[in-house]
């Protein structure tokens, strides 16, 4: 029994480490800060749109480098923003599927809650989709989880037990329920943003 709990502990720690390796800090100048996720080795960073108070921000990479980041695209309706930094070979987080998530599955959320680097919190999936109560007045699809997100968690990764990205930490709904943008919405957004970028180029 205690052996099982030890195994569970180390598995949780592994999943947290996986997510932590792709977690960045997004600083927008004087005091505001949020989190971001490396989603492509060639410098693509995903975060919440509401973290981006201005178009130029500074990003602290997992290896400690602090680089300026340029806003590539915003998806205000879903509170998402895509940034680019001039870096390569970054540890990108594999994208999972939010459609495949089942109620009761275990997930972890990482970020910079109250500025604490890489702090993790865990919970289970309550539900995914567009039929959830207590939704904010933006977005349409949500991933609801029974964990607590705090200021600074916004834009950070929510991963499943396999360490795949399943959502972007975004907002609390009531005192005890965290909401994330489902990764399937993220995929649609990234596809559009990258197509627009290549057309522009």
């Amino acid at each position, binding site marked *: 029994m205690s052996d*099982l709990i030890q*195994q*569970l502990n180390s*598995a*949780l720690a*592994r*999943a947290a480490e996986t997510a932590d390796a792709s977690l960045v800090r997004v600083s927008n100048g004087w005091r505001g800060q949020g989190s971001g996720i490396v989603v492509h080795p060639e410098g693509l960073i995903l975060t919440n749109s509401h973290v981006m108070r201005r178009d130029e921000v500074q990003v602290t990479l997992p290896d400690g480098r602090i680089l300026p980041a340029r806003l590539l695209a915003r998806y205000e309706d879903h509170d998402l923003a895509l940034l680019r930094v001039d870096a390569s070979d970054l540890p990108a987080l594999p994208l999972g599927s939010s459609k495949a998530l*089942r*109620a*009761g*599955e*275990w997930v972890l959320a990482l970020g910079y809650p109250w500025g604490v680097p890489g702090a993790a919190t865990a*919970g*289970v*999936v*309550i*539900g995914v*989709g567009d*039929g*959830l*109560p*207590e939704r904010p007045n933006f977005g349409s699809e949500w991933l*609801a989880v*029974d964990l607590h997100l705090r200021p600074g968690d916004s834009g950070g990764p929510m991963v*499943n*037990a*396999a360490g795949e990205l399943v959502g972007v930490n975004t907002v609390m709904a*009531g005192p*005890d*329920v965290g909401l994330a943008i489902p990764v399937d919405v993220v995929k649609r957004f990234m596809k559009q943003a990258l197509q627009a970028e290549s057309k522009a180029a």
Partner: protein
Amino acid sequence: MSDVLATLSNELAAVVENTGRSVVRVEARRRLPASGVVWSNDGLIVTAHHVVHWDENIRVGVGAETFPAALVGRDPSTDLAVLRAEGIRLPAAAWETPDDLRVGHLALALGRPGRSVQATFGIVSALGEGWRSPAGGLIDRYLQTDVVMYPGFSGGPLVDALGVVRGVNSSALMRGVSLAVPTSTVSRVVEALLEHGYIRRGYLGVGAQPARLPEAIAEELGQETGLLLVSVEKGSPAERGGLVMGDTIVGLGGERVRHLDDLMALLGGDAVGQERAVRVLRGGGLAEVTVVIGERE
């Protein structure tokens, strides 16, 4: 090495999926629908009393479809209601009493306020003896968890790690903590509602408040307080039995009456129509009258 986290995660999701087949959406109020759980294969569904605002036109659903359901009865005192679904065959959940649960055991709350089943997860936080809800209902065991009660989860099941239903969750029994009505209480209430359509409650017809007894009497009886009658309804069982304002009830049917909870516990459905000796403090001495317990409307 197999990843124990992924295994646990998958098993939790499987428990939710399996037991979720017995969790229905209950549409019986204007706002958000709530949840219910299938009691038996003949279509009986248990839900929370406080989410059933209508007595008619109730619908239950799994997925997108809904079906009509009749209200069998409700018990506000335990916050339970029983429905009978029509035109749908739903699998009954596995029900067990929470007697072998221990503090620290894993628990899931399931609900279906929308189309698909939803879940929150936690541990058993506290277990205790039977208690009386603020509405006067006798709950066989105190069963508190730290699962989040998501909107619409009231009336849904509290399940253990194997998917067995141990109680029915209600966010109205006590605010701020997640409490479940244990299966044994659910079973009792379902049987009573099937038989009578409501929960019979004994009735005395008095207004009372706890009052400290004189020292000598307290010593003689081995109790410090009784119930001082501040009103006696006209024509009530209490008045017919000879109780008067100013009496202090100290016992009923041979049991001690120290505060309102004691009296409520002695006025269960089984007491209706029964003669009970009521011991009172009257004019400085103890007296006894006989009352035939009435039935609360």
